């Protein structure tokens, strides 16, 4: 979901008219733009939580997906015993999945308890 491939014109340059993944949307709208003086603004708790958590989420989604991708590519390029490959591949997928669920929780903070129980 977060890092969907966009329409490609070439493999060295990908073009998209608008951000599609969650991390990219947050990157555009979250802390850039015309800031109104703090004393006039109303603080909305749900939004405060989002702006704090999202920074962490953006960083970890990117990093986890990067590692997962790198490890997966290595698995393809090297011819090691299958057992090791499977362990590596599985580990990275788990990490990426964890990061994406973290992102969802940040958007709907009320869900986090439910998620913990279901694990």
């Amino acid at each position, binding site marked *: 979901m977060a890092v969907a491939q966009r329409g490609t014109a070439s493999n060295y340059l990908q073009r998209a008219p*608008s951000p599609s993944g969650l991390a990219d949307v*947050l990157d*555009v709208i979250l802390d850039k733009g015309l800031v109104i003086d703090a004393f006039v603004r109303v603080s909305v*708790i749900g939004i405060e939580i989002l702006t704090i958590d999202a920074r962490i989420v953006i960083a970890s989604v990117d*990093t986890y997906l990067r590692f997962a991708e790198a490890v997966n590519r290595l698995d393809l390029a090297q011819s090691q015993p299958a057992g090791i490959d499977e362990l590596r591949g599985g580990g990275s997928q788990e990490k990426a999945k964890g990061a994406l669920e973290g992102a969802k929780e940040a958007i709907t903070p009320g869900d986090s308890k439910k998620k913990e129980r279901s694990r």
Partner: protein
Amino acid sequence: MSANHTSSPQPVYVYGVVPAGTALPHETQGVAGRPLELLERDGVAAVVSEFPAGDFRVRRSDLQAHLRSVEQVFAQATVAPCPFGTVLGSRADVAAHFLDPRAGELRMLLERLEGHVQMNVKAEYEEEAILRDVVAEDAEIARLRERTKALGAAAYYENIRLGELITSRLAARRATDAAEIEARLSAAAATSVSDPEDAAQLAVFKGSFLVERRALGAFDDVLDGLAAERSAQLRFEVTGPLPPVAFATLEPGVQAWA
């Protein structure tokens, strides 16, 4: 619920500022599903929607509604967007504490942004190609790599040293490459802001360029040329035309391109 007849003031969500007289897109649903409206004062107008008082849970759809609303307004007008989550206590507050004291500055900001769009550019190394290059160009790294390969699992400290060397060589390349990317693209843009803090291992450059709408073709030519030239090592991503979010600021210093 009409704001004029309720006892407590109706909070409003603010999307951004446009020139007075701007026609709003029809049937755009804003944050929390509320319709957009315009609050005009003295040549400028705030695009707002009513915001539910009390406990508010942000949903993904609200993020998308914010972006879509700003984009749809931007499709027809110059807009200086606010960050997601800008909420003011009432319509009266928007007028008295935002538009009235800042009308002059806001009009100047809108003049600067008129006819411009924002293009977001990201570049990162293609992992295998860049690692191969670093090994080929650096005798010490190549030697160390032979050693770690020969030692296998026993090469714990050598592996750390190898990774450390590669990281520092990558950092040096990144600094050079990021400066080149920004310089080449800036030549086709009015101004730019880049984000040098992005420490993701293969990220090289992340920045926003303010480009005249009529010069978009020239900007894309420069970008495509640069990306093609560096296609052996770099992968580029460009998003836009976007509303000029990263350039909608009243702070002095960032207005240098005016």
